[in-house]
């Protein structure tokens, strides 16, 4: 029952506000975390068995009647579902202690699960318009979650995020309308087949440009990134972790990849545009991250830079490049989720996000400091952590595909990344303990547990990288590489 991935979080979300009236803390915590745990176990265990014989297309009945609820599960969607469940579970565990002082936990978890349902629905849908609908489900829930603290900053950031996100959605709908107008269909496979027949290169080009603007805004690629450094730091830490770790990738990178590689076919021109966007995002955002004092803002810029790596890898279009891009997507989801969660621990303990104000916190918060260090080194690409292997795959793929300049840029940005993460380590965790923080204590149990969980994953996947790649990443990359092979049409851009 693939539909459980969408319906279960929605049903639990529906009853959570009522449960929240009965029990203010325990029941909402328990229900939300149990749901996330179930989704993780179901995806990781049952999912692999389901797609053992190839992609599954399930048609679910509605009240006993045969209706068109069609969901497809293949290697790529299962890979995304597991990533969503992993980071989602860590963030919801973290929320148990972190969201304590925000109040209205039932409502918080309800919005959180609607966002998860939206992402899962997007990943499983087989048709362009459903992609748009679930994009909106996740987005509407995330606007409210960014503003959840109700402070001036949070509301302003949420408003800015809303305004730019609406523009993104408008571009996506416009592109879908163009495609529907030309092909008379919305289903991925039918559209791909119809586009092959149709010789309408210019109109496909217009639709592709609209999609790049829409999904580029969602993924916060430079030059569409202005909203992200405001929205992500202002949200509560577990929400920042999910937004940076998952949402920009699902509603930006996943949707773009699925449509460009599986439906339009990755033409050389499109591949060039994607690689260029990726490289520009990597460089510009890394330089902007260098100058940041606000810890979460620096992490937000780093997210833009790392999404650049993912898009660069996928944009190459070779099987190795796609595998590298997807592996980096997964690793960045874990590591950036971890970093945002630890920054939440620090913010809760000290009340500040200004790194100049911190100093020597490792002495007071050793677990947080170590997990943060693991996340930083992983994103910077230091062996043997997971981030190293995915960056290596991308760089090797770039060299193999004959793009040495992009490969050099990728290496240099990796050095820049290490630089700004080391600045963060030095300012926040090492050096002399700022006397203000003499009374600071380690984060509460669940917050620490969530960060340790993600840090262990970063280390474990780094050590067991080849089996991770062969069991999870390769099936996903194969789906996309087959898609590129199957639908690359003859229309020019």
């Amino acid at each position: 029952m693939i539909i459980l991935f969408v319906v279960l979080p929605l049903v639990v979300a529906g009853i959570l506000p009522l449960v929240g009236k009965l029990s203010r803390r325990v029941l909402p915590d328990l229900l939300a975390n149990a749901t996330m745990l179930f989704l993780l176990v179901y995806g990781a265990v049952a999912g692999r068995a389901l797609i053992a014989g190839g992609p599954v297309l399930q048609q679910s009945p509605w009240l006993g009647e045969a209706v068109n609820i069609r969901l497809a599960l293949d290697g790529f969607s299962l890979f995304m579902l597991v990533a969503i469940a992993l980071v989602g579970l860590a963030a919801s565990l973290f929320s148990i202690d972190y969201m304590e002082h925000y109040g209205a936990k039932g409502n918080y978890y309800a919005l959180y699960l609607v966002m998860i349902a939206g992402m899962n629905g997007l990943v499983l849908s087989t048709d362009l318009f459903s992609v748009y609908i679930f994009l909106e489900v996740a987005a509407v829930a995330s606007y409210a979650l960014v503003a959840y603290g109700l402070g001036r900053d949070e509301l302003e950031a949420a408003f800015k995020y809303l305004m730019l996100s609406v523009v993104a959605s408008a571009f996506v709908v416009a592109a879908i309308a163009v495609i529907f107008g030309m092909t008379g269909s919305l289903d991925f496979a039918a559209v791909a087949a119809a586009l092959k027949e149709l010789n309408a290169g210019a109109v496909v080009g217009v639709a592709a440009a609209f999609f790049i603007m829409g999904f580029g805004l969602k993924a916060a690629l430079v030059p569409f990134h202005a909203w992200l450094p405001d929205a992500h730091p202002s949200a509560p830490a577990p929400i920042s972790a999910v937004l940076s770790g998952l949402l920009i990738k699902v509603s930006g990178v996943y949707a773009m990849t699925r449509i460009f590689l599986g439906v339009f076919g990755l033409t050389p021109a499109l591949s060039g545009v994607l690689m260029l966007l990726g490289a520009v995002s990597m460089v510009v955002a890394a330089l902007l991250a260098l100058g940041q004092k606000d810890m979460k803002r620096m992490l937000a810029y780093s997210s833009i830079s790392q999404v650049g790596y993912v898009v660069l890898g996928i944009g190459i279009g070779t099987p190795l490049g796609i595998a590298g891009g997807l592996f980096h997507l997964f690793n960045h989801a874990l590591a950036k989720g971890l970093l945002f969660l630890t920054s939440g621990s620090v913010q809760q303990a000290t009340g500040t996000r200004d790194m100049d104000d911190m100093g020597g916190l490792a002495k007071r918060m050793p677990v947080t400091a170590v997990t943060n260090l693991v996340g930083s080194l992983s994103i910077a690409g230091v062996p043997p952590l997971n981030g190293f292997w995915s960056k290596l795959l991308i760089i090797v793929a770039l060299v193999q595909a004959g793009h040495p300049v992009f490969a050099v840029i990728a290496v240099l940005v990796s050095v820049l990344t290490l630089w700004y993460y080391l600045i963060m380590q030095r300012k926040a965790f090492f050096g002399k303990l700022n006397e203000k923080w003499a009374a600071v204590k380690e984060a509460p149990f669940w917050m620490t547990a969530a960060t340790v969980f993600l840090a262990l994953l970063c280390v474990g996947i780094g050590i067991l990288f080849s089996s991770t790649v062969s069991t999870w990443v390769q099936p996903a990359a194969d789906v996309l590489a087959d898609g590129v092979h199957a639908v690359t049409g003859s229309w020019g851009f």
Partner: protein
Amino acid sequence: MILQTALLIGVVLFSVLAILLRDLLKSAVSLAVASLLLGIIFFRMNAPYAGVFEISVVAGLITVLFILTITLVHKGDEVRESRLANWVFPLFFVIFVVIDALVMKSLLGKIPALASGAETGTFGEVLWKGRTLDLVGQIAVILAGVFAVLALFRKGDKHE
């Protein structure tokens, strides 16, 4: 053709007015007129269901909600309109009409005719059977909206 162009120009005119006007009440009414004209265009283009929804929900129901909310929170004092609107609006409008006249006619001929889709049938069949997954998505959007209102207008123990 002339009626169609006039309707399109009307949609753009009232949409722009809805953005430029500072008086929220006038702005809401402009939006309603724009969607009314859009509804008529839908009817004329053989999309009666889209027309019915556009007119009843967007022009009707949502406008009622807007006007209700505005009158509930309205202080009653006069709003001074921006002077920008006085010259930006006519300028924008003239540019639009010129582009429309020059470009649209030749462009319209180039758009391929809509291929008939697989998802045909009566309106009910398409909505309830053909697009059921979208209905699940819409339920989720409504849930998200309701929870957002509950969360953002909550009282008491809010974050400092």
